[in-house]
């Protein structure tokens, strides 16, 4: 991902990829990821200049997930504890994919569920990072951390990542705070943290936790995923609405047509609230309705990144 800013583009962002329903018909997740990435990077090309600085910077205590190749054995011999050597201008960037697999992410009546959509995006990001030789890790969580894959670049890591994604299923309550704590603990240098969640029933403290992660120097991107029906409430019959997550006893008997206008306003305000929170915490906020082609979401993200880094480089010159 460190080379993302090295991409240039010949075409404007648009709907170039397959929609989620069409993607679902493809055979495997790696294939879907490849299709998404191809759709997103069509017209783009790589910067031929690669970074190569390996100047030592500092030591960091070993934590599970760190590459054992970077263990400073001399330090081990001296102090009897494991330390990792860190280097300045290391072009290898570590990316953590945080996938919300709570029960609410399983909602999706007409197309794919939010969780499926999130796995497509995670797979696409993993594939893209793998192509660039960057390490991508994965945390699948609900109220607990269900699965952890540390960022790796070794052969076979991508296979493990796809397998973990395909194994993800919706259950439990949302516990994003815990996942963020985990990332803050294990990320030893500035990393890219990509969060995929619907943020429904997120606690009020989540915003401060996000800002906390950002304050550690990590680049945090929040992909806010909502089903179109969670935006429009397109139902006509009298319905007995009930919560989906365990322990949610809320019920409401209502005519959706009566609530539709107010619901749209509530939904819009919900997104605007998170957008504002992210802006304050210098966190990148990306909203995605699950009826959009994932490649469009990926492409917009890449273009935005490119513009951002181009702007930063221009300012430095």
């Amino acid at each position, binding site marked *: 991902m460190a080379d993302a800013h090295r991409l240039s583009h010949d075409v404007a962002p648009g709907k170039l990829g397959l929609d989620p329903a069409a993607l679902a018909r493809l055979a495997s997740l790696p294939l879907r990821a490849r299709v998404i990435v191809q759709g997103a990077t069509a017209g783009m090309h790589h910067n031929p200049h690669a970074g190569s600085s390996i100047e030592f910077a500092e030591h960091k205590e070993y934590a599970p997930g760190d590459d054992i190749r970077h263990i400073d054995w001399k330090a081990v011999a001296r102090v009897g504890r494991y330390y990792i050597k860190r280097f300045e201008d290391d072009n290898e960037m570590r990316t953590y994919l945080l996938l919300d697999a709570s*029960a*609410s992410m399983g*909602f999706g009546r007409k197309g794919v569920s939010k969780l499926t959509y999130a796995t497509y995006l995670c797979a696409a990001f993993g594939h893209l990072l793998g192509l660039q030789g960057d390490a991508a890790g994965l945390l699948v969580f609900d109220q607990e951390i269900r699965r952890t894959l540390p960022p790796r670049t070794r052969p076979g890591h991508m296979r493990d990542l796809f397998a973990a994604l395909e194994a993800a299923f919706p259950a439990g309550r949302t516990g994003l705070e815990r996942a963020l704590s985990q990332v803050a603990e294990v990320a030893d240098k500035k990393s890219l943290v990509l969060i995929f969640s*619907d943020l*429904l*029933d997120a606690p009020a403290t989540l915003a401060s936790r996000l800002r906390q992660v950002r304050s550690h120097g990590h680049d945090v991107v929040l992909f806010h995923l*909502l089903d179109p029906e*969670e935006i429009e*409430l397109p*139902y006509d*019959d*009298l*319905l*007995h*609405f*009930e*919560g*989906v*997550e365990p322990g*949610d006893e*809320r019920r*409401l*008997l*209502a005519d959706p*047509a*009566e*609530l539709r*206008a*107010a*619901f749209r*306003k*509530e*939904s819009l305000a*919900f997104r605007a609230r998170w957008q504002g929170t992210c802006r304050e915490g210098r966190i990148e906020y990306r909203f995605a309705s699950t009826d959009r082609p994932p490649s469009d979401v990926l492409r917009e993200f890449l273009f935005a990144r490119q513009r951002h880094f181009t702007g930063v480089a221009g300012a430095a010159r």
Partner: protein
Amino acid sequence: MNLHFLGPSLLVGLLAAVLPTWLHRIGRKRARPFPFPAMELLLGADRQVAARRRLREVLLLVTRTLLAAAIPLAIARPFAWVRSEIPQTSALPQTAVVLIDDSASMSRSPGLAQSPLFERARTQALRLVSSFAPESEVALVLASEGTTTPLAELSNDRNRAIAALSTAHGSFRRADFRSALARAAQIADTGGQRDRHIYLFTDLQRSGWEEVDPTTAARDVPVNMADVSNGALWENHAVVDLVTEPTPDSGVGGVATTAEIANYAATPVQGLGLTFRLDDEDIARTTVDVPAGGRVRKRILHPLPPGRGHVIQAMLDKDRFPADDSRLARLDVARGIKVLLVNGDPRTVRNEDEVFFVEAALRASGSLFTPEILAPDDLARRPLGDVNAVVLANVGALPEEGARKLVAFVQGGGGLLIGVGDHVDPEVTNRQLGAILPQPFGAPRTASAQPGAGREGETIDERPAERLLPISLDRRHALLTNLPDGEGLTSSRFFRYLLLQPTAEGAERAVVLRYESGAPALIEGEAGRGRVLVLTTSLDREWTDLPIRPGFLPLMQEAMRYLAGAPSSDARASLLVGQRRSLPVTADEKRLEIRSPSGQVYVLTPDAPPPGKHAVREGDRTPRLVPFDRTDEPGTYRVRGVHEDGSVVERPGDTFVVNLDPRESDPARLAPDKRPDAASRGPGGAPGAVRRFELWHVIGAILVGLLVAESLLSVRWPRRWPRPTELWLKLVAPRAPGGSP
């Protein structure tokens, strides 16, 4: 209001009213569970619209419940019997005479900002006429005294009846239900329908019903009455009399004016403002306290300015019947009417003298009359140039010269009153005065023995004495206009009187008073340019007790004024609404112009006098009398003469005033048993005018309203209406060729 139904069994359908509630409950139970993650957003949205939604749900449920109930209710054809303002009427074709009370009391407004009773009566009558079956015949009669009948012929033309009703207007006259009902019954008798009715709209004021027999008032035609006042009590105060009399003691031209104020309310009135105005200028302002149901008199002394035609007015603070809060009187006081009393039966005992009572009556007026007593034999020698009127009191045969002189006097414009008695020989009188007698004398008739007149041993005649027929008191006649009380005459007893022979010449003769037997008591006739009054009984107490009755004095004074040709006197110049005023037209005058209180000008052109009567001889300057009947407005009427040469001369001396009949001021209501419809109202007197009020159309209208309300409540209105441009883009732009979707 009792509710009734034509089809009560259909009310079973009211059970359908529970359907909406039942369906609502079923619908709630049938709602399927729907797992939805964004419950927080949903509950937030629900909080926004919860109050509005609940209100709408409740309103919808209520509306639908009422709708479900209204349909069977309307089908069951509900109706109610309600009291009706208009009389109950039949749905069959009928002969209907609409009789509207247009008397003065109907011009009052029952409350603030309410239309007068006459307008209410007219509105109700219009509704009644509109409700008649198409083939019905309708006529319209008004109830005031002497008024014309707007629609005297029965007509099938509904528009004609409505037009007649619309143009009818109230009057200030007094009600006369005896004549009006008789007229209405007469018209109804000519109708072609079997069902005949008189519909009477009135305020049920007692005045005007005095001479009505409720059982025979309208013969066999049933009378349906509508009380347009709705039985509301009416409190009124009024100026019921205004009298002026000269008061020489208070100086030259001094006059005393007395106003009589009546309070018809059940509570006393205090501090009621009373203003006296002389010729449109206030001369006195005072207040009066009048007890409940009582009367008070207020007297002021004031000088009379020079000139003639003065009018004084007494005005009370206005109430809801302002027409009777003011009264007018003419102030010119005629003085020095010379009356020659020819005594046919002089006596040494004064009160047995034949002319004692007449002389006393004339002298009671102060300086107005100058009576002079004369023996019959002296008549030939007495010049009559300064005499205004002559009274023959029980005079037998006159000297021939005297008789001729008397005939010439009358035919030249003089006045003659003849009172009879035992000395009068009908044959002689007919021969001597036949040229001027209105009707030849016949034989005397004894009605009963005079009390105390029978001698010992004589058979007492126990028959009741004759009395005057009350209805013969024609108050419109100038002689009786100013009599304060008719009782003063009708209480008199007549023991003996002279019958009159039939005559073919009836045109110039008028019966002023009649006995109960129908025989004339007082007749009036014109002779040449003069007038003759004949009282068919004596002027003393020999044949009657009239001279000691209260009516005798004013009757004699009025008779002398009348005979003396003093039309400009104060009494003659104060009329009641509807009364006739005779105005003199001199030979120089082409016509008279009379300006009414409202400013309308009436033109009177004297007709050519009939041969032998009123013949204008060469050089004769004696005025002719022209009747004026358009005295419909209370107020001051001013007269001016238009001469042959076109010059106009104001005649202040002939100014006259017209007042409301004080009986119209009395709010006393007609007793229920005196009503012509008393029999049909039942013994309890309960109001019989009810009508069936159909409610199904009201419920139908409510049903339509509920449907509209239900539709409006069911529609989900946008919170913001789209702008015209938005509507255009939404509706038209997608269809435009080449338009982008």
